[in-house]
């Protein structure tokens, strides 16, 4: 069994990290839909559109989460744009099988227009802004008025803007990005991220008055968990979804 999050699964094609649009993984899809419903509830008044997706350290599943959340929102009829703001380790374009060219960094230096930068993915209502060319000083871009203006313009065109960000404990970009976002979705690798790391990351974000709207457990394993989700797993098995996954 290969996990879409698994570190042992680096060779797995990135497009496979998006569970929507292919058979199986009903439990995973339902988990993303639950996350989508919570985000819709958070943004019910229509004023909160920019969601910053953070984690304590690298490899906790931010890009996978943001990609699947974007597709789930798109399937619900919401127009979504996903922006890759991890300038050091850009990955989002791989999830959507898009080349990392003509991206945000190129737009910021005037190489490409806004329309050229925003790329429609094969998923309905889901667009992506990839990083583009490599950037030496990300904070210059993140604090620029041009980026703020771009976000304001995107708010008019899209229902949700999802920001795929670098890890809080490794890079301080989260401070600059928080001035652009309405709330933070915090990804925690279940049974992997140390409590101390989680605690430190949350403290840093709270110290910067960031609005943490909720958290997501990635790499979730119901066998290790002592909570109600075990019931959910049984529920899905009861309805045959679990068996489908096994057959895969």
């Amino acid at each position: 069994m290969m996990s879409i999050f698994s570190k042992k699964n680096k060779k797995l094609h990135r497009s496979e990290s998006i569970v929507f649009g292919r058979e199986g993984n009903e439990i995973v899809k339902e988990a993303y839909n639950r996350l989508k419903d919570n985000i819709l509830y958070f943004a019910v008044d229509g004023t909160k559109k920019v969601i910053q997706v953070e984690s304590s350290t690298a490899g906790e599943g931010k890009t996978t989460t943001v990609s699947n959340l974007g597709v789930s929102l798109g399937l619900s009829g919401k127009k979504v744009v996903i922006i890759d703001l991890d300038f050091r380790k850009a990955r989002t374009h791989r999830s959507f099988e898009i080349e990392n060219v003509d991206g945000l960094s190129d737009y910021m230096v005037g190489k490409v227009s806004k329309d050229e930068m925003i790329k429609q993915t094969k998923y309905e209502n889901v667009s992506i802004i990839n990083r583009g060319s490599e950037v030496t000083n990300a904070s210059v871009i993140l604090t620029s008025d041009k980026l703020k203006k771009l976000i304001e313009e995107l708010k008019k065109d899209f229902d949700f803007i999802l920001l795929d960000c670098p890890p809080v404990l490794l890079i301080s970009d989260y401070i600059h990005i928080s001035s652009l976002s309405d709330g933070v979705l915090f990804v925690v690798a279940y049974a992997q991220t140390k409590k101390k790391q989680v605690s430190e990351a949350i403290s840093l974000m709270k110290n910067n008055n960031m609005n943490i709207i909720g958290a997501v457990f990635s790499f979730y394993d119901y066998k290790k968990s002592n909570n109600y989700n075990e019931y959910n797993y049984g529920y899905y098995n009861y309805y045959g979804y679990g068996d489908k996954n096994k057959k895969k």
Partner: protein
Amino acid sequence: MNEETYNEQGISLSDIFFLVKRNILMILIITIICAVAGGVYAFSIKKPVYTAIATAVVQAEPTNNGSEATSYSYSVALTNTFKDLIKNITVINVAADKLIEENNYSEEDRNGLKSKLQNNVSVSSTTSTLTLTVSANSTTPEEAILLANAILKATVSVVDKYAVNSETGEVIIDTNGEPVHNYIILANKLKVFSEASMDTTSIKNNKLVILAVAIVVGLVISFGIILIKYLSDDTFTSKESFEKAYNINILSSIHEADGGNQ
């Protein structure tokens, strides 16, 4: 509760039940291994222990000019004196001599016999009676009986021994023409009441106790491992503990999923 206090939470009853459920296979395996090891030891390796009992009576006479309390103290002191003497090295040597002379033991067995008499024999008494109970343990009932009887008879023979003239080697005779005892206040005060025999020998059947102890040890080891694992786990494995620690809701738990083709 805030993020600074996440590590102050204890382990709840539901956590314990969950941990047991999650580790039930490990618990069963370790417990079964310990039970099998305990069973093999109890039923195959460990030899049964037989205990033979011999009884002696202390013939303490009331003092003529003393009070009842003095008589009582005297009899208790006499009983305790015999109790101490039974395990004395002099008595043990005499008992070993008797066993070699009268039974199928050789000189080579002397040290082993002395060791058994020293370690496998115990003496007990109560303050309200004038009896001494000698118990001897052995892996065979016959040997247990021999050890109990030999040490008791050796004690009687030592305390009843006559005084001997060191120059002539003859027994010393008093003015009345009676032989003089070596230990005047002890002589003829200890009498064998009942010798150890098959009727007074019991077998210590503790196989089931060993098996039960092995099972308990297995459970303790299993729970110890689980507890160490639990306490050394510095990650979040429950939605509730995360939410309590930071007051942040878990909006979804993304299950592990299969890879696969689109």
